[in-house]
């Protein structure tokens, strides 16, 4: 979710006090799910957020970025038909009206905002639009346009999420520290976060992306497809450095074909009138001409500016320390989502939201997944659940089966046969430890991958499951068969 305004101390036009069983600060995927589950369990619950329900994910994260990526893909397909016409389809001179694309995206977001609100209303959970300030572990002041409300609660859930990390020497916008894509005069280089990138009304001619992680590459790829000249600046030696090179190679290939310039071992130094000044590993500086500089160097938990720091909760690095049931170090103060650690992913927060509501209701629920799937919506997509071959090999003898999608019929018919599915299993009992895939449409395979790990599947379980033909998912069974030494289609 978006950070509450730290400096908001509006004139108090009205003051009231309410009491509730559960007060949830933050209406993101963690907070709103906790609100729904709490309502289902008969708990009296309030969700506080200054923004529409859904948090970063719904408003300025997962959903809008996927909408933009989809639009970019459609456009790229249209351009491809117009130029090389690989499928024999003729398209004349496609253009994109980004403002209209963004309006379409905003429509989706609005529909989901209302949907989440409706779900909360259905179970009797109250939504308070306002900024929360923690007074103590049981008291929160909620400030809104209508006034200030003091809410006392039996249980407090911190679900304030994360915000884009800023480079101190390259602040967002005009140096206000705000996300908003404003600040510089027209024509000047503008530094934007992912939030700003999703709200652009025009496709920037020259976009420099600082940070070659998943957010930067997803958005960089989308803008490249929409027509931007994109340069990616990465301080590390590799893009997507948390994944192995085998997985990222197809992404690098696509970036190359899109004309994206990738500068690894390169540091962003400052912004000047023409663009971004960077230095390579030898210290040589150069300026990358840019209209927009998109800084995607990670996210930081939102744990300051709203009073929670005064509770003196035990920290785990920059995060709040929580137990399996999302308890913090203070009695009846709970925390879920990005404030509790990596991976900062919506689906992790959602599950924690369920767990925390059930725990408050006295159930024994615990957050104890075998795996939290991770997806990168680049072109092609990357899915990873469980352990990578390298990580798994640290603990035990493993066997790995990799099946290239170039041998998958469905991938060919999608005109997208790059990538592979890879299964990592324990050598002695064939328990599947990790599954990775890269390829078009493989994001949807994450359901099967996650289920396999949670159910404790062995290679034989996957290999003996009939996978429908023709689907990309056949690659999953083939990867298991490959690990077992007898693939059929390779």
């Amino acid at each position, binding site marked *: 979710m978006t950070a509450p305004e730290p400096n908001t101390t509006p004139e108090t036009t009205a003051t009231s006090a309410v009491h509730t069983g559960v007060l949830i600060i933050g209406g993101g995927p963690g907070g709103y799910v906790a609100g729904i589950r709490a309502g289902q369990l008969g708990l009296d619950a309030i969700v506080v957020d200054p923004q529409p329900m859904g948090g970063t994910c719904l408003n300025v994260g997962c959903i809008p970025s996927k909408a933009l990526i989809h639009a970019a893909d459609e456009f790229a397909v249209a351009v491809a038909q117009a130029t090389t016409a690989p499928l024999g389809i003729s398209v004349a001179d496609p253009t994109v009206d980004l403002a209209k694309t963004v309006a379409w995206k905003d429509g989706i977001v609005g529909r989901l905002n209302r949907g989440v609100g409706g779900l909360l209303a259905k179970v009797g959970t109250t939504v308070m639009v306002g900024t929360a300030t923690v007074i103590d572990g049981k008291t929160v002041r909620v400030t809104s346009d209508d006034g200030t409300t003091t809410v006392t609660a039996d249980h407090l859930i911190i679900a304030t999420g994360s915000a884009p990390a800023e480079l101190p020497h390259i602040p967002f916008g005009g140096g206000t520290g705000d996300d908003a894509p404003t600040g510089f005069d027209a024509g000047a280089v503008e530094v934007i976060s992912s939030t700003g990138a999703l709200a652009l009304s025009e496709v920037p001619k020259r976009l420099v992306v600082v940070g070659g992680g998943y957010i930067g590459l997803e958005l960089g790829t989308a803008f490249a497809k929409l027509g931007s000249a994109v340069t990616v600046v990465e301080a590390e030696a590799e893009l997507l450095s948390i994944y192995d090179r085998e997985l990222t190679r197809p992404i690098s290939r696509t970036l190359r074909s899109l004309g994206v310039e990738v500068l690894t071992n390169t540091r962003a130094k400052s912004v000047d009138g023409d663009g971004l000044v960077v230095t390579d590993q030898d210290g040589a500086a150069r300026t990358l001409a840019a209209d927009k500089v998109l800084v995607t160097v990670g996210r930081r938990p939102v744990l300051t500016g709203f009073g929670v720091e005064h509770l003196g909760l035990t920290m785990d690095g920059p995060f709040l320390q929580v137990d399996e049931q999302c308890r913090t170090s203070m009695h009846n103060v709970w925390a879920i989502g990005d404030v509790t650690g990596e991976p900062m992913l919506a689906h992790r927060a959602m599950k924690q939201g369920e767990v925390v509501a059930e725990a408050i209701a006295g159930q024994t629920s615990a957050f*104890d997944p*075998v795996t939290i799937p991770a997806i990168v919506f680049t072109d092609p997509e990357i899915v990873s659940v469980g352990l990578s071959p390298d990580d798994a090999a640290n*603990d035990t003898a493993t066997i790995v089966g990799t099946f290239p999608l170039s041998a998958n019929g469905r991938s060919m018919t999608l005109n997208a046969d790059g990538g592979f599915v890879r299964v990592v299993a324990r050598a002695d*009992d064939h328990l599947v430890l990790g599954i990775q895939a890269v390829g078009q449409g493989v994001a949807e395979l994450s359901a099967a991958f996650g289920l396999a790990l*949670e159910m*404790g599947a*062995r290679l*034989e379980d996957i290999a003996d499951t009939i996978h429908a033909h023709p689907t990309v998912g056949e690659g999953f069974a083939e990867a298991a068969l490959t690990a077992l030494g007898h693939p059929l289609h390779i």
Partner: protein
Amino acid sequence: MGQLTIKVPDVGEGIAEVELVSWSVAEGQPVTRNQIVAEVMTDKATVEVPAPVDGVVGALTGGVGDVLLVGSPLFTLEVEGETGERTADPAPPEPPSQPANAAIIERAMEAAAAGSSDSVGGPNTDAATHSVPTSSANDGEQPKKAPPAPQHRMAPAATPVPSGRPGAPRPEGRRPTATPAVRRRARDGGIDLRTVSGTGPAGRITHDDLDAVFAAAGTGGLPGSGVGRSAGLRPADDGFDDQPIVGMRRKIAQQMVSSMSTIPHITYVEAVDMTALEELRATLNTNRADGQPKLTVLPFLVRALVNHLPDFPQMNAHVLDAEGQNNQGRQGGTSTLRLFGGVHVGIAAQTDAGLVVPVLRNAEAETIWSAAGRIGELAEAARTGTAGREDLTGSTITISSLGSLGGLVSTPVINKPETTIVGVNKMTTEPVWIDGAFVPRKIMNLSSSFDHRVIDGWDAARFIQAIKQSLEQPALLFVDQP
């Protein structure tokens, strides 16, 4: 790494199939040579199947209760390619009497503590026995070589049956494998899955494994907690508990049905005055040499059988059912009555797992003292589960005794394919009218069943009367037969 397939061992005596009793390991578990991997059960004994070499257990074939053909795959072992570690002949500690596979360790089922009864003694026995066909009987019935295992007879791999017993221990540091639903159920029940062994594939903890844990916790929590107990009442309980009839119990069930449905039983009860024999037994026990076993009634009864069976050879015999005769007993051919020269007395014993019948072989060659010693050894072997197949097969007549639980009368079930079973009832002191006065006498009933197809009631009565006479005048036991 190579893969070694370990087959269901040939346990000899023409046995073609075995029942899987339990797995001692989980798939993926490293095992060392001679570590027990599985227990299988034949008609006669439980056989432990050890790992022939060091390795890692691959696939386990079949679930508990599955019947597996001899020679069909039992489990696989992932082994190192090299073989240099193997010695030429491991000379395992097992008894050398194993014909098929020296690495097979046999033992009887766990036996109950054989509380020796003063009046009858010997192993705790039961009024009924399960059938213990002998090798010779099987030779006549079954081909020696097992047919190749047809696929449909093989249990599907990786389908464990609820066993209620813990699986193999998980290697150190490994997170327990369990589905989300199992994890939730364990949490709800306050069970730390790290303490639960999994019987599923790859050691996965199944709902059945949790059932076993809950069941164990449930029984453990009962004593002292029953509110109604002090009042002699229990809360109304409409529940029930389905337990699979597997293993030893299933085998016993099959044998009982087979015996009762094919053999027309005639049961004959007679009271025996044991007073004189008891006096003799007391004297012998008082004066016995150091190291001599204490005499029970059983060796005397065995001696009586040995003395009289030559006159009643059909009592020391097997009925070999004809080819084509089905278990309803309808005739499809000619049956055979096989009369034995030696007397091999089966002594039915109750154990934790069920009935076992250790066999006193060639009782005709035993003295009272040696027979007593041998019976004691057999009882101990049954109790500790160390009885070998030799000790459990080949009986030609059976004695069944429940000792002090022997009751007044029993209707023993013939140990098919034998023809005769002698049931020993409880010995009591009774007033007996002798020479114009009641005198206290030690009276014990014998309840004996005979196969009425081959034994007439008249002969049955004469046989028991002869036994009775020998026991009532024990000097006759030691007088050469005319």
